């Protein structure tokens, strides 16, 4: 077998397996820029992986045993600090700020151990107007290297992934626009509000449950509006708790959630019928308790949409707040539509028997149908 052909064989084997599953992500460095007050100097942090530094410095692993100890890292730090200084520059207005990096700590990330350097600039900077970054580290070494830049100015916060290049990247601009899913707090909030509204609007079961909660209320009376407010607040409290817990991965979304959501509609609709017959059940506290406890289950149902939505990490709080607000707006819209129906029909003689009782029975049947479907009784 000639040499060229043997080489072909070796590489062929590597190719023939269809899809390769990768360890972790490719190489990333992390930059954090902060400014505590307007016009204050900017503080910078840079975290770069030891695995990347090893590729940039042949001498880092001094004894070439392919294991780095602290002594080897310490010995290379002056060189690393200089290297970082020539590979990353900030510009504020017309001033180019060179960064004087100093070693701060070693940190463990999901992708290995990183060296963290800090630098502070001495020149005051109006970051709202112009702040740009030039980052060229690892450019010649790894084509997939990215720097994840997070910036926390006094009023805004955003992060974005930047490819090393000789060009200046306008950070002020990135803060204003946000980029993709990593947008500014406000754009995250807005997109998750939208998601929340869409989610509740597209879920017939959530709509049905809310109708159940308001169906028996006489919305021409002030005290009934109060009861409505209490019930809806209780529902919101319930679903917020589980939604947040599930989004953060503290509780799962078990298989029984969907059938129990269906059951919650049947129970609430049945309760409407009970309330009509036995006045002692008309206390808003009971309705609120039902709404809150089933709210817990509905929250688990909502969490699916949140998990799907690729949470922006830095803006988690905003995403959660946005989604909850969205769900809230959705609920209020449903109630608003229901109020119109109520205003139009409540004077009708048959309202109680046809709409409230008939509606409750219909909702029970629908809910039981969903329940049996979800639990797998029906095809």
């Amino acid at each position, binding site marked *: 077998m000639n040499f060229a052909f043997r080489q072909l064989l070796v590489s062929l084997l590597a190719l023939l*397996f269809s899809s390769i599953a990768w360890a972790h992500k490719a190489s990333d460095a992390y930059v954090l820029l902060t400014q505590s007050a307007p016009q204050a100097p900017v503080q910078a942090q840079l975290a770069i992986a030891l695995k990347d530094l*090893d590729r940039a410095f042949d001498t880092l692993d001094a004894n070439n045993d392919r294991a780095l*100890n602290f002594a080897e890292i310490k010995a290379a730090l002056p060189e690393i600090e200089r290297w970082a200084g020539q590979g990353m520059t900030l510009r504020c207005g017309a001033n180019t700020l060179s960064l004087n990096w100093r070693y701060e700590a070693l940190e463990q990330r999901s992708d290995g151990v990183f060296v963290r350097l800090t630098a502070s600039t001495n020149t005051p900077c109006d970051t709202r107007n112009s702040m740009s970054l030039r980052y060229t580290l690892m450019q010649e070494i790894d084509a997939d290297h990215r720097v994840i830049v997070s910036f926390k100015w006094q009023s805004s916060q955003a992060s974005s992934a930047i490819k090393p290049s000789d060009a200046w990247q306008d950070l002020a601009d990135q803060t204003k626009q946000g980029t993709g899913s990593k947008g500014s707090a406000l754009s995250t909030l807005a997109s998750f509000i939208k998601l929340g509204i869409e989610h509740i609007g597209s879920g017939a079961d959530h709509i049905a449950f809310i109708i159940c909660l308001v169906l028996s209320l006489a919305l021409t009376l002030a005290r009934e509006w109060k009861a409505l407010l209490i019930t809806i607040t209780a529902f919101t409290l319930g679903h917020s708790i589980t939604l947040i817990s599930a989004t953060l991965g503290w509780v799962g979304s078990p298989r029984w959630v969907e059938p129990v959501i269906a059951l919650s509609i049947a129970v609430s609709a049945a309760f409407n019928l009970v309330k009509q017959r036995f006045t002692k059940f008309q206390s808003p506290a009971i309705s609120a308790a039902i709404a809150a406890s089933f709210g817990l289950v509905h929250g688990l149902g909502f969490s699916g949409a949140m998990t799907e939505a690729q949470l922006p990490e830095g803006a988690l709080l905003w995403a959660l707040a946005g989604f909850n607000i969205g769900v809230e707006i959705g609920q209020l819209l449903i109630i608003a539509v229901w109020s119109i129906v109520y205003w139009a029909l409540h004077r009708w003689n048959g309202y109680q028997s046809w709409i409230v009782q008939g509606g409750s029975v219909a909702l029970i049947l629908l809910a039981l149908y969903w329940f049996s479907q979800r639990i797998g009784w029906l095809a």
Partner: protein
Amino acid sequence: MHPCRFFLRRVNMKKILLGIVFASVGCWAQAQVKELRIISDDAVIEKLGARITKPKTAKDLIPAVRQAISLARQTADPRYLGQAQALIGSLWSSPQASYEVATLQATIEQSRHEFAQARKTLQSALARPSASHAQAWLTLATIERVQGNYKQAETACKSINASEAQLYAQACRLETQSMQGQWNEARDGFTALLRAERLPANQAWLLSLLAENEERAGKSDAALKHYALSLSFDNDGYTALAYADALLRQKQAAAAIKALQSQPSSDAVLIRRAQAYKMLGDPQFQSLADELNARFAAAALRQDSNAGHAREQALHALYVQGNAKAALDFAQTNLKLQREGIDWLIAIQSAEQLDAKAEKTKLLQAAAQTGLKDERLK
């Protein structure tokens, strides 16, 4: 105890909502970055992978790129792919690149699941002069098979100059046939090739192809046997994953963990381990799930297109997070890119868990339409 859990227990019920939000933000950040306390100068802080020999002359370029690609495959570390591209440098997508360089570029693109781009690169590579175009045709055939284009895969297999790479040309055709349901022909073919083969690495590879054929044919016992034998010849990462998947489908979780024992901790390997521990009710599941969640969160910050990672994202959602809805979404995204048996299976299992019968029927029909035949897809 994990500090976050401790915090959670102490939260006053009245403040639970606020507490949850703030604790989470703190713990979220904490989970990503942990400062190290260094005790001694000698403590090993990071293990490093093999170094790529930097090319000194133009002639050294191809072996260096090849070494990087092969290390990427062995270690499952994508850093080597970025390095391989950087080595190719200005020859990347350049008309000046030779057939070899362009073919290696396509391999890097294929490894990143940039199949459309890889196909384009291969077409331009095939237009360049070379004594043999076997490698480009084989890579092209692989891409076509992964994407479920079996006719195109067959054409690519047939274009290989058989006198030079006969084993590969035949295996290429047999694998394509196997995917289209010609399991008996493929079995006979692979068995004949195995009988003639002496190199352990090639035997291992042929056995893994045979095992996959048996899985498609619904003969899981034979498949498990071939996978195990293949791994005894060569402990290949891809085969180990396929073996673990086959074991997990047979609910042999402990054996699956053992099969992955010596594999690098790639996302794909961790997901299978987590799945197995979950099956066993082992508390190690939780720490693996935490690690995977942190990894996926870190990867999301890169803002790459997520499609290349969607298979792992679907598996993660389905088996680690238990979120079938998200899993189905990722699986659908993944199917736009990859259409191997496992890709259809993930989508179908997600649909089953959601009780989405219409969706499942649609998926089965779509799989059948590509010409894929697989007894597991039912």
